[in-house]
């Protein structure tokens, strides 16, 4: 029963990893930018969450709509004020810009908040659990995280494959020059896409901040986990990313059972093994 317990915890943790990865996957899929600063953006949003809840003196749930609005605005500003000016003909240039952004964000956070670990609180909900099977308890908050991950992936899939904006996104991602020439305002589409990306980042950030401690340097591990989830799942497949997250989550939980110091390492090892066995991921988008 302990193994079942460990695996179920891993599965639920995988939902959080998939949430880390969604925005990263979208930015790469639509704009062809490898956003090295993605993890730091998650941490920035966690701090914004902290500030907003402390300033207003309300719970995260009450403050969430405001935080989402701020995140969306930040996404627009980042695209309009920074990435829009970055030439993308050479993938190295946006990569370096994102790297620079990552360093700037980390240092700004360090200046503003110091290096002490912080945490958001959700009160009793954090400890609440339900007994699904005899002796198998599942944290309510973990279930919420996983449910949100599934809902957001489903929502994004619907948006991408069932709406006009989604068709425009796919077109721009497929062939930008052609899209522009067929009347799609690619600049406006990129701005909207970055707003959506930051909304996913905000959700991931708040859940991360409630689940455990974070500090200005927490971004890089989130970025790494997000990358691993995407690569295991196969580029461009969001359900694959969820599967990738779940695999890393299970590996971490099983690793932690062996020894606490094995938790993170086990995730990376499983990633390496899968990368070796299935270099194009479990659910590659195209066979060719």
């Amino acid at each position, binding site marked *: 029963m302990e193994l079942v317990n460990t695996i179920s915890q891993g599965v639920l943790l995988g939902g959080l990893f998939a949430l880390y990865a969604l925005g990263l996957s979208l930015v790469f899929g639509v704009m062809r930018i490898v956003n090295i600063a993605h993890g730091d953006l998650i941490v920035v949003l966690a701090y914004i969450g902290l500030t907003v809840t402390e300033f207003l003196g309300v719970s995260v749930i009450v403050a969430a709509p405001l935080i989402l609005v701020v995140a969306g605005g930040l996404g627009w500003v980042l695209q309009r004020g920074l990435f829009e000016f970055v030439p993308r003909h050479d993938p190295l240039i946006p990569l370096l810009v994102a790297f620079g952004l990552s360093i700037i964000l980390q240092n700004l956070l360090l200046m503003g908040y110091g290096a002490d670990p912080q945490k958001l609180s959700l009160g009793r909900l954090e400890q609440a659990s339900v007994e699904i099977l005899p002796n198998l308890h599942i944290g309510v908050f973990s279930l919420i995280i996983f449910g949100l991950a599934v809902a957001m992936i489903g929502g994004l899939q619907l948006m991408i494959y069932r709406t*006009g904006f989604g*068709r*425009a996104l*796919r*077109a721009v991602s*497929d*062939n930008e*020059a*052609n*899209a*522009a*020439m*067929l*009347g*799609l*305002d*690619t*600049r406006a589409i990129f701005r909207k896409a970055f707003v959506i990306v930051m909304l996913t980042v905000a959700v991931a950030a708040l859940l991360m901040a409630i689940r455990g401690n974070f500090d200005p340097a927490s971004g890089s591990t989130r970025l790494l986990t997000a990358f691993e989830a995407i690569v295991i799942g196969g580029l461009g497949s969001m359900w694959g990313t969820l599967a990738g997250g779940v695999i890393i989550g299970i590996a971490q939980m099983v690793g932690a059972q062996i020894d606490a110091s094995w938790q993170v390492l086990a995730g990376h090892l499983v990633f390496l093994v899968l990368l070796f066995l299935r270099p194009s991921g479990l659910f590659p*988008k*195209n066979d*060719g």
Partner: protein
Amino acid sequence: MQPLLELREVSKSFGGIEVFTDISLELAAGTRLGVLGPNGAGKSTMFNLISGLHRPSGGKMIYQGQDLTTMKPWTVCRAGIGRTFQIPQPFVDMTVLDNIIVGCTAGAGLNLHEARDRATEILDLTGLGDHAGKLARDLGLLDLKRLELAKAAAMKPKLLLLDEIAGGLTEAECGTLLDILNHVTGRDTAVIWIEHVVHALTQFVDEIAVLADKRIITRGEIDTVLANDEVRQLYFGAEEEV
């Protein structure tokens, strides 16, 4: 009467390299103009300037009284200028139908229902009706050229820019393409067609312009231009009979 499109002393250089120094051109509504010229003369660059993909280094471009010079590609498209690319540029991971719907909704401003009707109509006209649900990546060359033309024509442009759509096709396929072209472009559609396949071009256009030596060296009726000594020398080789 005001021309549909007017280029005034348009020049373009990339870095220090001049592509052309002076393109001046007027095009009346409904005119079909063929453009000949050696490789590297800047024919495709001219299209890239008109369609807003690149900005000219000098000169002015006027379309229906509007200044095209600084317009973004999507604004140019919405103003009624459609184009095809020399190397077909489909959305490879989208279906043939969706490829066309994109232009009909974004470029021509149709709602989804109208766009679907228009796309189905143009797919039948271009002979792609059976491929509507196929991914564009699975099409052969002739079908890709059909799709390229269908995408541009579906928006019912006032000005259609065709970039070597007959290149790489067999003579029979050229004939098919010409039929399609006649079906999808009404007599009120102005066309500028860059082409090396002269026999295809002459069956469709009213006039021919020749782009060489960084400028338009001559323009006029088909027979006059093709008989021009300078053109024969430059383009066909002096000795060759046309």
